């Protein structure tokens, strides 16, 4: 009986369940739109995410590889521009994920600590993980997945006693601006498609149900968070930042509280994993076999961005812009893989 590793199939699931936590950190569920409308926005947003996965799935099914590998093989002259695009994009993704995390951490959990210090410690750990490579990070993802399940279980069951359906509404009422904002916001997990487009070649045991399961998992989680924010926290939540953090803070089992520590732990590990994967993608695009220097350089740039964001609101607003993220994601997750879809023939490698 051969031993088969299913963890590679789980990779996307893990990434999505990890990033969903981060995305919810700075998500404000608006009270002007009902729960049903928010739910529909979320489903449409995730639908877009599913569409952005299609080009890399197509490449994977045809060649068993990813567009970065194909570009290195068939268009070596384009390596530099592609590496530059990837570097810019993944620096943006890493900053987009890191900034709300450090803000939440320093505002809610350890007040008084400087965000750049938190960022520095986290980035130092990410350098180590990125040096180990994508496969090792995805193995780490297995533990993160189990921890995410456990934390979510605590988070949601701990809030059941606070649930009051009169706090919100299931009716179909919506505010046009809110709906558009929510839709754009729920499209942001598409950056996972870009990561997937770069490293899909590492997963030799690909199956189509992989991204579908991932999206389903994320949808269920988003829905549960919105449900509890709407019906457990109610109007209290609308006046607060970082609603999912507050959800974890209000969760309790009798006298047992402190579930926000689990939430922070999950967020920390999720950010750690996503930034490490982003660094790995950047390095893969350069094609260097000994990537120590590149990884340190990219991390330093990221740290400088964190520092700048601490002092400049404009810079911070730039790196927290969903529109820019989606635009760049469209280029890396859709345009570039589509350009390589017909390259490499229809033979399946590996």
């Amino acid at each position, binding site marked *: 009986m051969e031993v088969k590793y299913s963890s590679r199939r789980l990779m996307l699931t893990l990434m999505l369940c990890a990033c969903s936590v981060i995305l919810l950190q700075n998500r404000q569920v608006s009270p002007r739109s009902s729960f049903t409308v928010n739910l529909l926005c979320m489903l449409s947003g995730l639908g877009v995410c599913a569409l952005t996965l299609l080009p890399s799935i197509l490449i994977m099914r045809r060649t068993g590889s990813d567009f970065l590998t194909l570009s290195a093989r068939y268009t070596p002259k384009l390596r530099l521009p592609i590496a530059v695009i990837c570097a810019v994009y993944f620096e943006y993704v890493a900053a987009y994920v890191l900034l709300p995390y450090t803000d939440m951490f320093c505002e809610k959990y350890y007040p008084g600590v400087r965000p750049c210090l938190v960022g520095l410690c986290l980035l130092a750990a990410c350098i180590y993980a990125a040096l180990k490579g994508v496969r090792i*990070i995805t193995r*780490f993802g297995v533990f993160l997945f189990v921890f995410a399940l456990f934390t979510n279980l605590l988070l949601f069951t701990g809030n059941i006693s606070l649930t009051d359906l009169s706090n919100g509404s299931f009716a179909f009422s919506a505010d046009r601006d809110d709906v558009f904002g929510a839709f754009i916001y729920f499209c942001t997990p598409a950056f996972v498609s870009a990561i997937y487009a770069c490293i899909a070649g590492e997963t030799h045991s690909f199956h189509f149900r992989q991204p579908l399961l991932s999206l389903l998992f994320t949808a269920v989680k988003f829905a549960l968070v919105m449900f509890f924010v709407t019906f457990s926290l109610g109007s209290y939540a609308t006046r607060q930042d970082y609603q999912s953090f507050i959800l974890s803070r209000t969760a309790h089992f009798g006298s047992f509280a402190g579930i926000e520590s689990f939430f*922070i*732990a999950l967020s920390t590990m999720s950010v750690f994993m996503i930034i490490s994967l982003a660094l790995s993608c950047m390095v893969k695009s350069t094609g260097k076999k000994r990537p120590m220097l590149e990884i340190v350089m990219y991390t330093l740039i990221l740290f400088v961005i964190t520092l700048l964001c601490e002092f400049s609101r404009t810079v911070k607003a730039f790196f927290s812009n969903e529109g820019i993220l989606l635009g760049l994601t469209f280029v890396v997750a859709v345009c570039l893989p589509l350009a390589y879809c017909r390259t490499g023939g229809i033979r399946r490698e590996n």
Partner: protein
Amino acid sequence: MHNMEYLTQTVTGDLMLISVTELKERLNSMFSNSADLSFKEINLKSRRHLYGAVITVEGLCSKDELAQSVLNPVLAHDFCDDTPKQALNAILNSVSGSCDMTEFSSEKELISYITSGFAVIALDGCEKMIAVGVQGYAYRGVSEPESEVVQRGVREGFTEPLRVNMSMLRRRIKNPDLVFEQMTVGSQSRTQIMLCYLQHCVSPLLLRKVKERLKDCDLPTVFASGYLSEYLEDEKTSRLFSGVGISERPDTVCGKLTEGRIAVLVDGTPAAMIVPRLFVEEFQGIDDYSNRTYYASFIRLIKYLSFFIAVFLPALYVALAQFHPEYLPEPILIKTAESLSRTPLPVMPEVLLITFVYEMMKEAGLRIPKSLGHAVSIVGGLVVGESAVNAGIISASTLMVVATAAICSYVTSPLYPPITMLRVIFIITAGVAGLWGMVLVTAVVLISMCAKTSLGVPYMASLAPFSLRTMRDVFIRASWKKLGKHTIRVQKFPETKEA
């Protein structure tokens, strides 16, 4: 009369084509007239006045066996007109009663045989010699291994002589598939080691890797298996956890061999090294397979829980007491705060101090004679424990936390070294950065563990990379009906396949 005329010409290499007298001088020179080298000259009953010698190292041979198998039959036999070569053949084929005899001709082999307890018969004028197995040195008998005690199952553990250990394995696997492959390591100690594997279970790739790594060992002396374990570890992977398993039990080793692993026995070491080693194996005990399934599974889960407590509990205590006291339930919070307020040291140095004192006491307990062990226990328990708490030097809650972690660390005793190091690292991290720091260090440690390999097989295999098929013997132990049906062998892992 010593027949010096039978001297033959010397040939190239290290072949021994010299007279017995010269051989004696040469050996005495090589051994610097060592007192334990015995060179008994013998005159054989023969018309040609054959002359020879029996060479041994005192203390390594059984005198009775030497007399019965070598001296008595050889001296009593009439060699008539035999030439030295014919006489040697006669000794080899009919005269001596020993079944362990080998013919050889090199100096290297001569040294190896006599230092291994063989008696070597050399005849003047004959280029070859005979080694007769008459080993009879004193060694510790087979006894129950102290570090792997079982409730049910065999009470037999490895002992120092290599051949005895080999026989213990052969007795359990009566199958020609079981192969023992001998190698020699240590340029000075010339230590014999034995590779053991099941021919049809082992991965050829892994076997080649093991042989190559052992050949690469350039140590002058190898006195224990620990010398070689580092050579069997994969390069550029974390050394915190060991990728080489150690067992003193022949039944455990046999079990591992049937799973396709390779065991390395080292002469003079009462334990076998087993490769590849996976993290989940550290939680599997031989008792698990004797007990009922539900109980074995329960014990497995207890072991995993103990591992987490041993590593994280003191650090968690530091983080909660120093950074997040609000997470503690009120009664515990009040008592802990009250207890800590009476001690002079902050919580992190206090926990570190007790941890170090405990490690010192443990080391002292291991090294001192058993008769003094009770005294150390009393001093440790009463003076360091109760008196220090009463004097207000350390708090009772801290002592309890460290003691609980210490007890838990013995549940998975093979992991004791990494547990101890990780505990100290986490205590310091918790004291500096609280729970968040612990999470970050945990992530780094997990990455390091996931990156570790043992002969190329991921150390964390079964968990990460996750494999559902192997889960039946990880957190729970499935019934023998299921385990016995499909043994999951190491060669079934993708990393053990030739590229």
